[in-house]
């Protein structure tokens, strides 16, 4: 798989980040993420992950959760205000960063987070 010119342009700023790069972007584009939980954060997470290049499947649920591939999972409770937005952004970032560290090294690892606490 290779990125075409439009994809290179689209993901260029993201690929500038050391932990992502070209290989990481290819991994993102070929990975399914499942997102479940209440709104609005389910839709927000889906929107941001899709924009990064992931394929996303959504389902309703009481507790918010994200599963990246088969082995990486984060579940948490998010408040509906700015704190919730911050925790969503930080939690997704950490999950993606840790996952990228594994997949770009050729492994797949296994990790399950519960609110990172």
């Amino acid at each position, binding site marked *: 798989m290779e990125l075409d010119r439009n994809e290179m342009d689209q993901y260029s*700023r993201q690929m500038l*980040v050391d*932990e992502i790069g070209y290989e990481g972007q290819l991994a993102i584009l070929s990975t399914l993420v499942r997102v479940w939980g209440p709104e609005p954060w389910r839709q927000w997470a889906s929107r*941001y992950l899709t924009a990064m290049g992931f394929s996303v499947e959504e389902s309703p649920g009481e507790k918010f959760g994200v599963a990246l591939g088969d082995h990486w999972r984060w579940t948490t409770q998010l408040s509906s205000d700015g704190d919730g937005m911050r*925790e969503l*952004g*930080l939690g997704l*970032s*950490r999950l993606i960063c840790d996952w990228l560290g594994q997949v770009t090294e050729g492994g797949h690892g296994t990790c399950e987070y519960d609110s990172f606490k």
Partner: protein
Amino acid sequence: MPKARRSWPRCTSGALRSTGKAMNVVVVGAGAIGSPLVCGLLQWPEVEHLWVVDGDRVERSNLPRQPWYQLADLGQFKAAALANALGDRRIHPVVEVVGEAFSWPPADIVFDATDNWPARQAIQREARRRGIPWVFSSAVRWEGQVAFMRPQGPCLACLFGEDPGEGLRCFEAGVVGTVTLAVAGQALAVAKAWQAHGEQWEDRLYLLDGRTGDRWWVRLPPRECPHGT
């Protein structure tokens, strides 16, 4: 050619801390931090008018971290495209760059969602001239920073030195969209906290690290700014 000055709606100055009363907000920047910030601010019933100021147009490279824009928005002004996407009559798009000639709307608070120092310094000058607070925010790679800037409190020079330089910008170093989302959430949270605590609120610079999911803060000294800004 001189710009015509707009007739802005009446200011509700000082209303920020009076929860339940109308509030006017300016968000400078409709990009990766500004777009989720505007979405969050629209959830505040106190927000009566929300000016979104940005002279940039939507580019393809914006899409991974500015997911309120679509391919169909490419080439459109961000401020207008965001107002169109969110469809809320409280949003007033302003397609301009803030600078000396900019005609500032009558805000109770200004949110910095830019990626450059000249714009931040223009925001700071105007906020201090009017005696209103502003919220500094920035993001690059996996890191973000947010600070609530009181009119009489520490200034940019107090936080970063008198000549901090431009620093790395996201088009040079890259940035992760979910980090900008976290920064927008922190900016909302500090404004809400100040609303709740008023002058009892400590001046802090918040630091976010997307690699570890950590957030911490540096407490700023409780003194007047010595830089005369």
